[in-house]
């Protein structure tokens, strides 16, 4: 079973980490890059497959060379065997379409070819949820989204998954598909290890990875557009059909108390304030 997990570095949106400029635009340079939080579920799903069915796990990301740390983090949590970084200037500023083309091409170049590709649900910065489906379309494999639990049968080359369907009420739907397949793990994904042998294997992998992660660069393959035989016109900014019409600043969190702006120069407004406060001054 050869699996690939797609992961992305995103700005660390946690309080105290993220910086915005005066206009409310994200300051990328000031904000540390971390693994997209939702990707953790994809990593867990991939790890579960490796523990139960053996094989290898590769982690793939597209981004600047600095993403090495994100990949290392991913390696440690999924006990990955190999890391792939798709990185060069031509790929930069890609929209989901151009990203999908690039990733699908890289998946096609992998040897042996992947049986399962995992991705997390939406990235924390783009929030589109498009990259996964577009990659599948470009690669030509079925996609199963919102997966909360799964089991593969490598002999029958089939995947059986439970997916969370949100409607008026939440439902769990069981689906089956052939391999290779693309799995988008839902944030509700729960790995399950109910056999001792699986937990023991998990423990073995942790030991092995501890050594590997120390020298993760030796397990890292970097591919640029030439390695992937991609025409720069079809990737990166040039290959992105998406037009960004405008960017709204992230709204500030509402204050706990209601505030009314008052112009101190305006007698009328100041008089209103005095009226409002007068009863309080009287001790009420």
């Amino acid at each position, binding site marked *: 079973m050869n699996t690939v997990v797609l992961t992305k570095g995103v700005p660390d949106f946690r309080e105290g980490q993220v910086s915005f400029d005066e206009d409310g635009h994200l300051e990328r340079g000031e904000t540390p890059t971390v693994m997209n939080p939702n990707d953790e579920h994809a990593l867990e799903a991939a790890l579960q497959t490796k523990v139960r069915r053996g094989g290898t796990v590769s982690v793939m990301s597209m981004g600047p060379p600095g993403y090495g740390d994100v990949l290392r983090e991913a390696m440690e949590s999924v006990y990955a065997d190999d890391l792939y970084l798709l990185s060069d200037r031509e790929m930069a500023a890609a929209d989901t379409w151009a990203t999908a083309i690039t990733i699908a091409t890289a998946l096609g170049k992998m040897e042996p070819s992947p049986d399962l590709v995992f991705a997390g649900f939406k990235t924390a910065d783009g929030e589109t949820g498009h990259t996964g489906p577009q990659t599948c379309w470009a690669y030509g494999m079925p996609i199963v989204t919102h997966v909360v639990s799964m089991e593969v049968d490598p002999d029958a080359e089939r995947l059986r998954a439970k997916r969370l369907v949100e409607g008026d009420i939440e439902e769990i739907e069981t689906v089956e598909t052939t391999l290779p397949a693309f799995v988008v793990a839902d944030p509700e994904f729960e790995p399950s290890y*109910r*056999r*001792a*042998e699986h*937990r*023991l294997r998990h*423990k*073995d992998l942790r030991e092995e990875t501890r050594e590997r992660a120390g020298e993760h660069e030796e397990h890292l393959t970097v591919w640029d557009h030439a390695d992937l035989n991609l025409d720069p016109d079809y990737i990166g900014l040039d290959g992105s059909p998406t037009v960004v019409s405008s960017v709204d600043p992230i709204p500030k969190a509402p204050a706990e108390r209601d505030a009314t702006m008052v112009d101190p120069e305006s007698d009328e407004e100041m008089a209103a304030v005095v009226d409002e406060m007068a009863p309080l001054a009287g001790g009420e």
Partner: protein
Amino acid sequence: MTERERYEAVVVGAGPGGAAAAAALARNGVETLVLERGVETGSKNVSGGLLYAEASAPYAIDDLFPEFREAAAERPVTDYYLHNLAGDRVKTFDITDLHEHDTEWSDAVLRRKMDSWLAERVHELTRETGGGLLTGVRVNGLLREDGEIVGVTCDELDPIEADFVVAADGVNSELARDAGLMDWEEPEEWFQGVKAVVDMPEGAVDDRFDLDDGEGEAHLFSGDLFEGVRGGGFLYTNEDTLSIGTVFHLDSLVAEEAEPHELLDALLTHPLLARWLDDGYEELEYAAKLVPDSKKVAHPSPHRGRLALVGDAAGQMQAQGPIIKGMNHAVTAGALAAEAFVEARSRSDPDAAGALYERKLREEGVMEKLRPRRYRAVRTLAEHDPVTDVLDAVLDSPVGRFGVRALGDDLERLYGSPFLSMMVPDTRTPYVTLPTVIAEELGDPVETKNGVTPPDLADRIGSLTYDVDVGNPHIELVDDAVGASGDAVTACPVSARDFGGGCYREETVRTNGEERRVVSLDTQPCVECGTCAVVADTDWEHPRGGKGVEFRQG
């Protein structure tokens, strides 16, 4: 459906008993799975703890784990004292001879460090057989087929089959209970141990006890400081900490309605301890656990079908007079059980393992230590209230006191007698009356002031680590009447009268205009000592794997 998992042997619990069994099984090529409920091995365990290697025992821990002493133990005990206390009068006996009798070595240990070290070795050994050690897994019962035991069931895993199941799950063994081999009914059959690990400034252990490299001390305390509760206190030196605690008969604790933490405080604040403790007293951990009294509960036939009980699970915890020996017997029994299975398997009769184990316990002399015949003789004679009353009265009378004075230092020799220590009756006389009289007649007053202020119960609970299984309490009150469960309010080491932050408390409820006093339970601060399994009417289980209290010292 996938096939059931199966191992040749499953060992439940990775204390000294389980570690020994698993290592011995694995060394003989038996595919062995070890299941431990703690988040890390050792995180659930508490002992005093002096670990003995007995010369007469067929297995000691360093036979099975050669680097044990170097890597996992604290200091060896090179001097052993017993202090008889009455008020501020103290008469000290040197009982190093008793301590050294049949002893190859004896080290103080802290269980988190010891057990987690053992677990790593055990995992390496068992992994080679195709098994291994898993933490965070609680075994919740025996797997049966047609009434026969064929394996175990767990909270976290699907049922597992095995040819041999070793229950090394300690005191309050759920497996022993499930098999009908042990019950948790009689307070007379148990001790309650309570312990504080005390931080010492750098070099203070060496300075204050006047110790050199490779030296350590043990001190025991008995007399009138524990409100008449039968039992005593201990102090052992670790590398940079002290283990100070108490061990009391549970029935006596209940009868006197004593608060365990207050008895510990009585020891900590006794003038004698000012020698070693000052007002900079800093407690690292407060912990408690039940301790079986082998004289009463060591199961003479600790097996059923494919199941064998070892260590505390089988009640194999020997109180040899004032010296407490549980860990060493757990090690011996674990290794003997493993030996029995290996032999039975080689004769293609694995089901004979249990009977063979029982025979080994007898032939190797383990059973005689646990349930000495001599004690049984003394017990029938001496453990009657009228006899105790007479003995106490005589001791306390001018005649008795004259006797004590006349014996003087010969008493030290008598106390140091291994022969007599096997027979000490379980009454007030040896625990309270005799030491008090000895201190009064022969002791000298201690002048020093003790400046220790022990933390209160709320602080002690507050500094423990818990991973509470919210909404899934592991103990449930079956009968909340004060008559049925009220004893737990005082006996629970993390509860007390007039303390709202503990597990048990008494409350008044009004129903239909009637007022009723009831007991209520909140398991959040529970340290899983097992006391209320015996003294209250409860449905008592251990928490799920990894949940509940986590001891860092033990």
